[in-house]
């Protein structure tokens, strides 16, 4: 649940979601649920030439299980706190 909690703190911030099919979408994080389904608003697609139809998309719902990475805004993450939290989680705390 660590990442769910983390993402909840990032609602409203600009993130980039990289999907397992290589689609890369930036946008404001609108909401996230326990399955890490992600809703973005004001989206922008990075590989437009591959998905030209995505150009007209401004908000979307991404299935949590297809997300490869979420690029976080550096300014919105306290790396030390996150590092500690992941350690605790890794230790099974």
């Amino acid at each position, binding site marked *: 649940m660590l990442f769910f909690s983390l993402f909840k703190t990032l609602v409203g911030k600009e993130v980039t979601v990289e*999907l*397992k*099919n290589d*689609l890369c*979408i930036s946008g404001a994080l609108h909401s996230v*649920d326990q*399955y*890490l*389904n992600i*809703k973005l608003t004001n*989206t922008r697609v990075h590989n437009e030439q*591959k*998905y*030209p*139809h*995505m*150009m*007209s*998309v*401004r*908000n*979307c*719902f*991404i*299935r*949590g*299980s*297809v997300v490869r990475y979420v690029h976080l805004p550096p300014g919105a993450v306290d790396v030390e706190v996150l590092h500690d939290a992941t*350690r605790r989680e*890794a*230790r099974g705390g």
Partner: protein
Amino acid sequence: MAARLLTAARRLDIDTQPELNESREPVLDADDEEELRSKCADVELVMGDDLSGGPGVLHLTTRRVVWVSSSPGGPCLALRYPQIVMHAISSDPSAYARPCLYLQLDEGDGDVIMGGMAGGGAAAGANGDAGAGGEDEEEEGEGEEEEGSAEVRLVPTDATQVGDLFKVLCDCAALNPDSEVEGEGDFFFDEAEVMAGLDPSTRAAVIAERLEGGMDLGEGEDGGEDLQELMGDDPGRFEDEDDEEGGEGEEEEGEEGAGQAS
């Protein structure tokens, strides 16, 4: 057009023969607690760039997205939510004439190829052990490069419906998480990373424990002695049978024997 649409749909593992009742509405699976959440007439379905199924009726249930052509005997397609990688509202007239729902589907290829590679690797390993050739390599590198074909647009005649349909899709997608629980189990932490995260005294304790364990293991698994013991009353016990091809080298045989003994 319909035939091409159905072919494209089947390639994406879309159900092209969902059960319909006499009024061409999808039969809901009560056992799976399937409920109809939204029904919208006059929705055109387009796959890829231009593969249109013509006008139809869109049913959003808690388990599936079912589109049924308005023409009698026309195609119908049923998508399960896990197939839908993402969905969105498309509303820029420069990209597509009318506002619509844009769905991107799982092409399935990624997983298949990954599976193939993993299988191939394991097979190669097995063959390596056996020292045998003759592996039948399945060249699955065809990788159909029809990018973008895993796209479906649902275009309601009444453009004001798009927002509501999007919302219902979001809600229903959230009701259908992948059955395979991904997440925590998938995170492998590098051992060094975990160790680095421990404070020095704990780390020392873990190392000491591990060393001790290692020594226990060493004592317990003294294969040589076990082998001697087992061979004691029957020295020929681990010899090759006469009719075997043999000639594998005695060391290997010894190891095998020890393996079985321990």
